[in-house]
């Protein structure tokens, strides 16, 4: 059943994706009318899917790669929705929908890969660690998206040619969304890392940070902090901020991929 609900959610995300792409060609208002209700519905079914999966496995922590993809997609969509509620702008959806769709698709295709069998997963700390880090990723992704949109809007204003193909929110609103996303995500990321460190310290001893995934995670966190600091102290925006957040995004993707290299994050039985 969880897979069925996930696939229903996938259909709604797909609908949202189509409308997000249509928004490239048309006025954004038409996008919001279909895309956002589709996102609501998708999130609802997604939540049901995640809840059932949790009941089935008997603990909260994702126990397969697909499960974690599903959780990440859910959190990204939820963060996007939260910002939509506040700012009523669907433009980040142009990037958010494709990512949510692809992650959900990967999770919904259903070929169950190796299961994480480590008894570690039954510890509450790991769930806290995973969820907080994922929330941090979701916020980071949104701020990466907005920094791209900022560049586009800035270029359009500078070139004095406001094409009609895409209606973006005002520059300052884009900027504010990005900054808020950073502010929101940073504590999550920090607490998530701390939670992870506690578990790892207990499990693997002091040398855990030599693990490639952990090292990359710390790098992402550092870039995160640099982004926030330059923004707070010098008001870095536009190109410089976009550069940094692209860097952070790539590092975050690398961290995600590093699961396959990481000893501490393979979670394969003892």
């Amino acid at each position, binding site marked *: 059943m969880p897979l069925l609900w996930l696939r229903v959610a996938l259909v709604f995300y797909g609908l949202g994706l189509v409308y997000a792409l249509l928004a490239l060609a048309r006025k954004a208002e038409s996008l919001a009318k279909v895309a956002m209700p589709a996102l609501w519905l998708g999130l609802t079914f997604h939540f049901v899917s995640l809840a059932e999966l949790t009941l089935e496995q008997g603990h909260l922590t994702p126990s397969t790669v697909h499960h974690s993809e599903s959780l990440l997609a859910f959190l990204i969509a939820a963060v996007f929705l939260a910002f939509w509620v506040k700012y009523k702008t669907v433009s980040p959806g142009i990037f958010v929908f494709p990512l949510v769709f692809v992650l959900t698709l990967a999770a919904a295709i259903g070929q169950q890969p190796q299961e994480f069998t480590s008894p570690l997963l039954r510890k509450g700390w790991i769930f806290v660690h995973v969820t907080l880090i994922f929330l941090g990723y979701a916020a980071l992704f949104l701020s990466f998206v907005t920094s791209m949109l900022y560049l586009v809007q800035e270029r359009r204003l500078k070139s*004095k040619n406001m094409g009609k193909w895409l209606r973006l929110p005002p520059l300052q609103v884009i900027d504010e969304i990005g900054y808020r996303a950073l502010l929101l995500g940073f504590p999550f990321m920090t607490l998530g890392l701390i939670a992870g460190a506690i578990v790892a310290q207990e499990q693997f001893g002091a040398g855990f940070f030599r693990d490639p995934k952990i090292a990359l995670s710390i790098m992402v966190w550092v870039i995160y902090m640099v982004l926030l600091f330059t923004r707070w102290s010098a008001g870095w925006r536009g190109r410089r901020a976009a550069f940094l957040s692209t860097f952070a995004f790539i590092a975050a993707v690398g961290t995600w991929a590093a699961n396959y290299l990481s000893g501490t994050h393979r979670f394969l039985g003892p």
Partner: protein
Amino acid sequence: MTFVLIGVNHNSAPVEVREQLAIPESRLAEAITRLAQFPGVEEGMILSTCNRVELIANVGNSSVDLRGFLREYFQTDTDLLAGHLYEYREQEAMRHIFRVAASLDSMIVGEPQVLGQVKAAYAVACGVGALHSQLHALISRAFAVAKRVRTETAIGSSAVSVASAAVDLATQIFGSLAGKHIYLVGAGKMSELAARHLIAGGAEAIFVANRTHARALSLAEKFQGTAIRFEELHETADRADIVITSTGSPYAIFRREHGERFLHRRKNRPMFFIDIAVPRDVDPEMNKLDGIFVYDIDDLQAVVSANVASREREAARAHEIIEAELQRFIARLQTQEVAPTIISLQEHLENIRQAELDRARGRLGKLTAEQESAVEALTRGIINKVLHTPITALKNAAGDAESNTVIDHVRRIFNLTPRNLNPGNSDSQGPGTKNSDLKSGNARRIPIGRSREKQEEPVREEEKKATPS
């Protein structure tokens, strides 16, 4: 039924002509009442704004000339208006009212006020009972069409003046203008206008600097802002989010190094320079700095003309919508027009058939079920054959100028009473009443020029008040 529309607008007539015909709001109800009572007019409405005066009426007979009403109401010689007055009938009249309501006929295509003005005129006409089914249907359709045009095209969404383009750009940079600071450097009509627009958009606190400090003081007073000495300009400019420059300086006042300093002090918060001066006050190099946006007068003009062009493109799309809606409306009207006649014609013959059947039944005696149905089929067949030609003729005539004559003839030939023709529609009158109205109307028509001097003055006075609307 025929729609007739006559009027003048900003294209057809100069303001001197339009103001002669303008009807102030206070007298509109009375004017519409008189129009509705004008011989031959069944329903009427008058739209009087600063850009147009239009009379639209549903007349019983297509020979009714609304110029006669103008002559009578304004006591004026319509020959003088001849070159300015336009007249549309039927389909053209409907199309015109659709175009007016959708703001395609406006001086600034897509401006939103005209729809409100049409709605106000409609409300007045309804209030005095000058609208019945047909014109009522037309005008409400015009509102629906205008709404469709507004939602389905981007006709009203772009700025078409330099000042509103500046506001539009500022909004694209800052979002809400609330709390944003404006700096006026130099004085000028255009920069004042831009500032006024920005303030109307929510911008706050104004700083004013001018080479002549007295001028800055008076301008600051006008905007309830702060005057700043010109020498302190570069020290204070970073306080503003939007800087409007229009000095007569022969060289650029704001250069790249200034911009860098402003950005540093502002922690890179964006700044918007609107440079209306020629030669330019802001070095175009400034636009290359991250966070500074410079628009000179040509850039603003380019935005405006791009918007005007896009409005024209949208107008073409709006035109398609209007044509489609027009055809739909006409089709609806046509069936409405002939449908009652067709129905009563069918009823009439059916009654004859039933009566004849009843009479014959006694002589026929008892019939078998088969015979019964044969008689039924025979009689039905006959009336259907008889009805075929008149019904086809009615359907074909629907929408023609001749339709009234055809309906009239069919009614007369089949002896259908007018009461039967329009069940439940007491508003429209039968052909008999129309004709008698028209005859008495012709007789009542007042010769032009009578008591003209006596009435001219008060009318003129009111009109003048109304023109700036």
